[in-house]
């Protein structure tokens, strides 16, 4: 197991290295070293200011979504659960749609302020998280919570659609583009904020491993093991929701990673022990997302593909292969 985890760590290191050295401009790691040693080198500057923030953002986003997906799949005991099943993405989209579309309708000559997109996505998600946690504290079973999550998603999507109905073609296109997800344009300050929130949350999820292992056999069994199911349920909801909300707010919707990576990891490690699965999902999610981001920006360069196109197109066959051959 440790060997395999070590392998994943190497994979992540290699992915990040590739993310840093591959780009549309011929720049190498030596250029970066030159730049960091204080020399005025544009290639090093490109690596440091363009490739590094986006590669690290892809890594942290991939890790977050994979861990979020794993937690939800275990809690709901449903292999189809993923970070977006709780309606977080719809809620984040709702926040952004409200900002983009309502702003345009209500404010003449409306202009955009970049951080407002992130704040509106976070506020939208916060509504969903609040509802989920309140429900999680009251309901008795995971199934109810799953249904509530789906309903939240539908409700927010419905409001989105109302706003879209009243928006003009250009704004609709813009809104749709936002929802595609990309790591383009991630700045160091954005990355800093993402790391400050996401890293501690990912690490804290590790402390749920024992409870998650117990939950694999159902809530009743977990209770007999002395697990406070209600607290764990709320913790799972909070962790998954925050991970998804922050990633969606900064990078838009990134499909597939949260749903598929836990499957890939389970099949690779042939275990359901969360002490292994959580770090493994984080490492695999980060590596896969970084690699997909390289493909997204290089395949049709200089046109960039939405990251979800790559994660889904390249990831789906891998999962199908793994599932059929298990």
């Amino acid at each position, binding site marked *: 197991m440790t060997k395999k985890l070590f392998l994943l760590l190497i994979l992540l290191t290699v992915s990040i290295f590739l993310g840093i050295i591959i*780009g*549309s*401009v011929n*720049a190498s790691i030596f250029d970066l070293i030159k730049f960091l040693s204080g020399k005025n080198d*544009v*290639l090093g*500057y*490109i690596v440091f*200011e*363009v*490739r590094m923030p986006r590669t690290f953002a892809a890594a942290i986003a991939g890790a977050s979504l994979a861990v979020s997906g794993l937690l939800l799949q275990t809690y709901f005991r449903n292999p189809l659960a993923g970070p977006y099943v709780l309606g977080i993405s719809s809620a984040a989209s709702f926040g952004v749609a409200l900002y*983009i579309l309502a702003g*345009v*309708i209500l404010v*003449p*000559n*409306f*202009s*955009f*302020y*970049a951080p407002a*997109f992130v704040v509106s996505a976070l506020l939208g998600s916060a509504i969903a998280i609040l509802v989920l946690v309140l429900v999680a504290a009251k309901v008795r079973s995971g199934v109810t919570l799953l249904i509530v999550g789906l309903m939240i998603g539908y409700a927010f999507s419905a409001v989105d659609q109302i706003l879209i*109905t*009243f*928006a*003009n*073609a*250009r*704004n609709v*296109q*813009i*809104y749709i*583009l*936002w929802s595609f997800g*990309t790591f*383009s*344009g*991630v*700045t*160091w*300050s954005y990355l800093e904020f993402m790391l400050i929130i996401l890293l501690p949350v990912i690490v804290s999820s590790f402390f749920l491993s024992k409870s998650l292992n117990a939950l694999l056999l159902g809530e009743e069994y977990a209770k007999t093991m002395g697990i406070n199911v209600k607290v764990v349920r709320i913790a799972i909801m909070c962790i998954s929701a925050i991970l998804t909300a922050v990633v969606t707010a900064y990078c838009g919707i990134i499909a597939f990673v949260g749903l598929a990576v836990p499957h890939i990891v389970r099949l690779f490690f042939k275990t359901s022990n969360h002490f292994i699965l959580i770090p493994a999902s984080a490492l695999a999610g980060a590596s896969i997302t970084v690699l997909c981001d390289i493909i997204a*920006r290089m395949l049709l*360069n*200089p*046109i*960039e593909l939405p990251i979800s196109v790559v994660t889904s197109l390249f990831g789906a066959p891998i999962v199908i292969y793994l599932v059929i051959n298990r």
Partner: protein
Amino acid sequence: MSMTLKKIALLLIVVALISGCTQKQKEKNNLNILLKHNLVKYAKNFKLIPFKAENSRGYILYVKNDKKWNVYILYNGTKPNISFVKNPIYIKIPVKRLIVMSSTHLAMLEAINATNCLVGFMYGGNYKIYFKDVAEKLKEGKILNVGSPYNPDYEKILKLHPDLVVIYVAMNNYKVAEKLKELNVPFVIDSEWKENTPLGRVEWVKFFGAITGKESIACKYFNRIVENITKIKEKVKDANRPTLVWALIWHGRVYMPSNTSYVANMVRDAGCTYLGFNGSAYTTTNIANLIKIANNADYFIYASYFAKNLTYIKNIDPRLTEIKAFKDGRIYNITPDYWQLGYIHTDRVIEDLAAITHPNLFRGYKPHYFVRLK
């Protein structure tokens, strides 16, 4: 004692303020602002004020974005120190290496023969470029395709060492400005697309003239457009004002420029009455509402070059065959080059509209940017 101290402090503050103001006033005088007035007459989203300092001359450029005015000092010569302007961004002109984001920027540069300074264009590559020189240079790689306006390739942008990047910030690319700022790439956010009059839009050519050192060509070009549009307006002044509807239908949704839009004002300049809705730049409605408003309209401009004939319109919705313009065969589409060449020839676009709607006044005139559907 404390009262005396307070008085002394107050006196010091007043003296400091007065001397500060005098200092700024002196600096303003030293700058010898050539024309105290803004060079811009029609556009509402930028101001261009020329100045001449000791070893430099240039413009103080104000551009409205996010309801605030960004200030740029465009200088030729030694960098002037203009402290009475709050947080200005200094840009050395004329710009030798320019990257632009939109085909409307290309049009403005083309109008003043300034495409030579272009080194990059956020093209993406998914539409035809009608400016032959730019298309050729893009093909040869002399102008680099630096990705799409919403996901530009920052690596290529940095490698090009641009003196300036002209961008617009809309909902799909709000991150671009932030990233360029972080990368220390000098950029100007232009708001030309927010102007709601044809002359307001065309006047942005003065901005492109100022940054490329082609001010006089830009002024000549602009004055010619003003003169031509004035002539057209004069010509149709006393004629009857036919009604005109301008719309695009996509997946059952109708998109119409509103009554205060650039299109509506252009239609009015052509001597027509524009039939639209009130509201922000564009109105989204349904076909029933379009029919209601377009029912008795004399002319219908279908704002897409995909419509090749009346059958296309009929296939969108058979109810459209009931509107007056359809029955009279007065439905026009726009040509594929409208969004690019039409931007340089705004006078021609208005003349086309005037000629279509006032055929008696423009006998023998052949419209270029609008095609009658048969």
